[in-house]
């Protein structure tokens, strides 16, 4: 295997949880299983530290690892990290130990299998973000469904059978056409390698269909309005750790897919579909906010707020401006931290009250101050309060929107106001409402619970107060993607006022120098 930095960081991040998952099957005691998984989680975090050495202005893809997989068909084991995936990988690694800590007492049955699922999830999620071979990407993308299905189906709430089936059917049905697109790209581009595919340019007609096939898969995963119906069901029924993983990592795969595949591979089609996707995003922001306002179940409320937040992310992506896209990536990270934290806290609350209704969890401010403090931090972050992480992301997206088209900006602003309305309503009721079911035995946050939440709480403020570090790291990658996209569209002769029929006649330009330059910097 060829590695760039000597030590195969990414492979280690994938292999360690897999090996641990197999090892867990031979352990008898629950305590050993938990401690081992926690240790593996901490090891994951430590192993991911070298990724912080990512050089923003360096090669397009760093930490590249390459090995033959199936030479006859041109499939390779090809891993690499760039600005789009860096923070997603770090977030995935961080979530593993936190999920273990958060489910320490929450999960009481089939403990070994639960942790095996967590480890498999971590491995496949990191694989999704790091894969640079289209087939490899698809393998991880689909492999992740099985452990997630089991997390919901086995450890979920009362309607878990319905929710898990819906989750599985929806996401799998969406991604079947993605497989057809992968096969089609191989025929047209001659390879499965993502960097090599990025260098080439394709005829509009091909881009049009390939974009639709890929966008369906990604839109369901995000989930974009009208494909979001699996999300509330899955979120509500999943166990706390499942919800956290779902919110923090799974949803990001969809938006990551848009950035990694749709924009660079089908730039002309992305440009053509952008108005539609922007409209759908705004519809999602408003719709998610309105529905969240009417919920009495805390988990459902957060689930619908996710639809709104992810709407901001897709909005940012399809603005095609550096501000918009960097806001979107930052928002992906922020949503993972904030909503992940909220779902974790709801899990802790559920362990105490055995109810997710707002009415049963009212007026806790007096009795559980530490809990309410952290809950307040995450809630404020969720409504993008200045000083917290989401504020930076949302503002960047809105700036991008106003730069592009003020009407888009005006349309998105009510979404931000709705977020304030439903989050503050929730926060107010839970903190100061009339105490309904509180029992002294509930107790405030314990040491373990602090440990599970503190890292996320710190990140809320760290990114909120010093966002420049993050943005600097991701911006070169974004500039690269957007400039390649523009160069390809120009070379193709695509202009904004072209009719659909004219666009369909656009053939692929022979070669786009800028595209080849930008991507082939892989090995400096």
């Amino acid at each position, binding site marked *: 295997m060829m590695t760039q930095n000597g030590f195969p960081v990414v492979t280690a991040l994938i292999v360690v949880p897999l090996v641990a998952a197999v090892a867990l099957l031979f352990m008898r005691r629950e305590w050993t299983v938990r401690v081992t998984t926690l240790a593996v989680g901490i090891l994951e975090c430590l192993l991911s530290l070298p990724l912080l050495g990512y050089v923003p202005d360096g090669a397009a893809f760093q930490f590249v690892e390459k090995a033959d997989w199936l030479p006859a068909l041109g499939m390779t084991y090809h891993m690499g990290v760039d600005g789009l995936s860096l923070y997603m990988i770090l977030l995935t690694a961080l979530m593993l130990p936190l999920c273990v800590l958060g489910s320490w007492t929450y999960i009481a049955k089939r403990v070994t299998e639960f942790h095996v699922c967590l480890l498999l999830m971590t491995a496949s999620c990191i694989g999704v973000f790091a894969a640079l071979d289209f087939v490899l990407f698809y393998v991880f993308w689909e492999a992740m469904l099985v452990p997630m*299905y089991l997390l919901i189906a086995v450890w979920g709430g009362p309607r878990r059978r319905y929710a*898990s089936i819906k989750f*599985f059917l929806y996401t799998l*049905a969406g991604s079947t*056409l993605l497989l057809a697109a992968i096969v089609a790209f191989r025929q047209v581009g001659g390879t499965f390698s993502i960097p090599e595919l990025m260098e080439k340019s394709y005829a509009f007609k091909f881009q049009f269909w390939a974009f639709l096939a890929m966008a369906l898969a990604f839109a369901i995963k995000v989930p974009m309005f009208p494909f979001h119906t699996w999300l509330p069901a899955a979120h509500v029924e999943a166990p706390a750790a499942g919800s956290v993983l779902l919110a923090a990592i799974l949803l990001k795969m969809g938006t990551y897919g848009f950035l990694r595949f749709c924009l660079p591979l089908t730039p002309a089609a992305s440009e053509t579909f952008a108005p539609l996707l922007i409209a759908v995003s705004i519809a999602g922001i408003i719709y998610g906010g309105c529905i969240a306002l009417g919920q009495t179940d805390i988990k459902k409320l957060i689930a619908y707020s996710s639809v709104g937040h992810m709407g901001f992310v897709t909005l940012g992506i399809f603005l095609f401006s550096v501000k918009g896209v960097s806001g979107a990536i930052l928002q992906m990270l922020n949503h993972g931290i904030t909503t992940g934290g909220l779902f974790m806290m709801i899990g802790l609350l559920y362990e105490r009250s055995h109810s997710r209704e707002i009415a049963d969890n009212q007026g806790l401010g007096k009795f559980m101050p530490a809990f309410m403090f952290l809950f307040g931090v995450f809630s404020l972050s969720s409504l993008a309060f200045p000083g917290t992480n989401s504020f930076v992301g949302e503002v960047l997206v809105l700036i991008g929107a106003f730069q592009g088209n003020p009407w888009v900006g005006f349309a998105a602003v009510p979404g931000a106001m709705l977020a304030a309305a439903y989050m503050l309503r929730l926060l107010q009721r839970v903190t100061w409402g009339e105490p309904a079911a509180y029992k002294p035995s509930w107790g405030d946050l314990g040491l373990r619970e602090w440990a599970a939440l503190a890292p996320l709480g710190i990140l809320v403020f760290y990114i909120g107060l010093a966002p420049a570090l993050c943005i600097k790291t991701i911006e070169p990658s974004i500039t690269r993607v957007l400039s390649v996209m523009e160069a390809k569209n120009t070379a193709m002769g695509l202009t904004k006022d072209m009719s659909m029929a004219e666009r369909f006649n656009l053939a692929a330009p022979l070669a786009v120098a800028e595209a080849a330059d930008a991507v082939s910097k892989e090995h400096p």
Partner: protein
Amino acid sequence: MSIFSLLPELWLLGLVCALFVASISDKKQSVASWLPAAAGLGVLAALFALGERGEFLYAAYKLDGLSQFFKLLIAFGFAVVTGIAAGNKEGKDLTPDYFMLLALSAWGLMLLASCVELITLYLALELSSYSLYALIPLRGKDRRAAEAGIKYILFGAAVTALALFGLSYIIAAKHTTYLSGLAATSWSFADAPMAVIGLTLFLAGFFYKLALFPFHFWCPDVYQGAKNETAAYVATIPKLGAVVVLVRLAAFVAPHLEVTTILAILGAVSMTAGNLAALVQRDLKRLLGFSSVAHAGYVMLGLAAGSAAGMSAAAFYSLAYILMNLAAFYVVCAIAKNDENPSLGDLDGLYKRAPALAMILAVAAFSLVGLPPTAGFAGKLFLLSAAWDQGYHWLVIVAVLNTAISIYYYLGLVRHAYTGESDAPAIVWPRGYLIFGGALAVLVLLLGILPAPMYDLAAQAAGQLHP
């Protein structure tokens, strides 16, 4: 060219003879103790003979990459089926002559893999079919088994007549029965209308074996009626024989000819019909029966492509197919009580009653869907890319949409096993039997993660047909 290059066939023939002796001896002894090991040695023999090349019997019998690859698969499948059957201690019908018929059928299929002349091919096909006609009704005094047997014979006889009729047309039009001779001529309808009609009819004989729409009606009924172990055999190994012949025949028709279009259309209809019918099944074996109709449709993707990549994809897929089906039937046989047919409800709570079986079932089911990282996914990917490269875009779209349909009933298996509740007692099997099943599941995963060695073998085999 020595007699040893025929070692796989000879070994299996020796087994048939040994079983024959055992079946006429007075002592009622069980052969289950030594048969799986002996069949396992047959796999080794096939492995050693993998590189053998040569021609026998006036070039009617040929050892090439394709035949040796499929002989390995047949030997492996036969060994696994005997292993599954050996675990069934209560089975009263698992007498030496039962296994003799099984081995005889596998032997016929092995011969079929090497036949490159139409008459020889027909004889080998019938050799493998006749023992199945006798095997399927063998299930105590079960009336359904008798019904299944009659259906299989009647349907088989009709299709065989059709195939022979087609054969006569081919001989009349082309004046040769050697495949090499046939391959050298044109197969477009405009040039040789009679030969194309003849070939289509001849293919029908193998579509019947493969249970391709519209020759699939026997399949669910026979699976349901036959013993679980017989069903495990009928569902897997005879399909290999059909695929190897279809690969040989499809190698000389180019894509987008009339014959190839028929293959593509039958494939598309077959996967759709199979998957839709499977959605409503409750009986596990019936469900797997309809699922195999759908899988026969997927194989057509590779055959319709007609390219070297398509042929090797079809060969690889049949390997994946027997692996995942044997794993699924292993679970079916393991959970069956008193040789009854298990239904979906019998899977309830399997997770608690037999965790290992539940895990094997999950691997098999996800592989049958075509979910990575399993053999089913790798095989499907190869088929799709081969078909897309030859311009069968609509067929690829139909195939991936079918994956979306099929997920529902395959997931149903996992759902019953993992989320169903049941008070039924735990299922206890000796450790060795579970390790045997676990090995099947591991192979399914391994073939999905590292498909390269087996794919290269399949590509090598197909490359010789399609230089």
